[in-house]
């Protein structure tokens, strides 16, 4: 049981890292970056390939993963600089799809749909499965705490205030003499780097990466987690990730209590309940469990008129 909980802690930590990355551009910068699965994949593949072929230890592989993901993030920020709101969301969603296609097609690099297996990680093979899970959970949550603290400071610092200003009104920020594009590029690459780091930790923990792991499901899960936790606050990403893992895993245990249903019906009920729960949560707590403390001016809530 401890094993299982430790593995859940690792996954929750990875989702929380992805949530933190998303929170930086979305929560602070107001840019809906749904390319999450793409940066996650870039990080995972960069880390796995450098560990397998260049024998990078996890720390070096993770830095390499962050670097590549950040570069991709900067590039995407430049290309999409003029796009706003829903347009940006859909283009970044497409970006993730393209990364998944490349992972599946460029067999010379990624080994195609076969995926890359036997990715080394500290302690794999030398530690017992339980010790490995516990130490992995420790590593992931230490990294998570460090990133959350750094982002928390960033968010309170003048840099964070400029990002919020861009979120609220890009024109005003520009008139105030801020180079909006460079702030956007900075936020995008920092967020991509954290998502890449999550990918690196994922690859090391699972020991295997394949294109199937990076479908739109990850993005949906993290977006829902962040919304449930509370967009704008770093703790929101953490709380949301834990909540989503508790929800997806917790529902596993109730299938057996429903006599007369087929396995397929239990599976669809499980996913349906997750959807329903999140809808209800949004209804009851629209700003998430941990709402951002800086309140938006009431006029902006009308949405329809201000667009």
């Amino acid at each position, binding site marked *: 049981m401890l094993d299982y909980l430790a593995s859940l802690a690792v996954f929750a930590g990875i989702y929380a890292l992805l949530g933190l990355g998303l929170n930086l551009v979305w929560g602070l910068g107001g840019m*809906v970056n749904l390319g999450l699965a793409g940066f996650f994949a870039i990080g995972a593949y960069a880390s796995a390939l450098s560990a397998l072929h260049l024998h990078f230890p996890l720390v070096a592989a993770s830095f390499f993963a962050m670097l590549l993901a950040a570069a991709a993030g900067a590039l995407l920020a430049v*290309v*999409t600089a*003029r*796009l*706003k*709101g*829903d*347009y940006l*969301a*859909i*283009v970044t*969603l*497409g*970006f993730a*799809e*393209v990364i998944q*296609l*490349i992972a*599946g*097609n460029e067999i010379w690099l990624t080994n195609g749909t076969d995926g890359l297996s036997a990715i080394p990680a500290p302690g794999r093979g030398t530690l017992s499965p339980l010790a490995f899970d516990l130490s992995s959970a420790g590593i992931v949550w230490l990294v998570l705490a460090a990133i959350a603290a750094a982002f928390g400071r960033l968010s309170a610092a003048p840099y964070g205030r400029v990002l919020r200003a861009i979120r609220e009104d890009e024109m005003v920020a520009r008139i105030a003499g801020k180079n909006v594009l460079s702030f956007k590029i900075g936020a995008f690459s920092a967020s991509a780097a954290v998502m890449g780091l999550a990918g690196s930790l994922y690859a090391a923990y699972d020991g295997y990466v394949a294109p199937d792991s990076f479908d739109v499901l990850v993005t*949906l899960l993290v*977006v*829902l987690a962040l*919304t449930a936790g509370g967009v704008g606050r770093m703790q929101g990403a953490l709380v949301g990730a834990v909540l989503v893992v508790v929800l997806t895993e917790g529902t596993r245990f109730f299938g057996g209590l429903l006599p007369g249903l087929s396995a*397929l*019906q239990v*599976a*669809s*009920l499980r*996913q*349906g309940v*997750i*959807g*329903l729960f*999140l*809808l209800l949560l*949004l*209804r009851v707590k*629209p*700003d998430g469990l941990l709402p951002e403390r800086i309140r938006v001016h009431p006029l902006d*809530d009308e*949405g*329809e*008129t201000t*667009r």
Partner: protein
Amino acid sequence: MSFLQALVNGALAGAVLALPALGFNTVYAVLRFPNFAIASIATAGAYAGWIANVLWGWPAPPALLVAFVAAGAVGATTDALALRPLRLRGPLTAAIGSVALDLLLQNALRFGFGNDPRGYDLPVFRDWRLAGISIGPQEVEDAGLAFITMTALFLLLRFTRIGKTMRAVADNASLAESKGIDPARVAWIANGVGFGLAGIGGTLVALDTSLDPLTGFRVLLSIFAAAVVGGLGSIPGAIAGAFMIGIGEELSTLALAPTYRTAIGFLAILVVLSFRPRGLLGERAY
């Protein structure tokens, strides 16, 4: 394969894609948020069409009408129950709520119908061959049905009271409200019409591919792409965007591995949006 053949294939694919994209933009024009649940609502329409066609033995046109009514009802009801309260918190909250709603609807369909593919009780014909170009009668019929539906929508928006109301809200929601137009009523109508179109579109997609709980989800990204390229909330834009995506993806296969087809669609969006950040035809609904 010839350039002309790719063009024809792309145009036929675009015609089928146009309907759900149109439905998506109709809803967007009035309610101003992307409703992701369109995937499962289109699938629900396809199942309704299947029930009419296979279980009741109805031919295609009335079955499509059933799909329209069922998808419109599901879309409008779920919106009123689940998403309208969220809309008050801003478009983004509603959009994310619609993701959760899609998950719920998709699994409701799976719970009831299972995953096995369902086939419609309609014959499959050999393609016609005209000057070396092959065209499928089924696809031409689909395109024709799509065209008739689009014309009907155009007439509805142009000449009826309901249409004028919808356009007024799309142009300026607060102004329309101050003139005494009830936004809740308009939302019901826009959702009913928009998702009804998506239901027809879903049935046509299912006719061409297969009907299972993921039918709508498979075309979701293409629907978004078409809507965005044309301009979110733009009715003619949805049609232009659908043809552009359909034709662009097919033409790309002349030069590139077909597995990269989706990537080309994405690049096309990027190019169009670089020059026109609000889509080909901007965001004016009509």
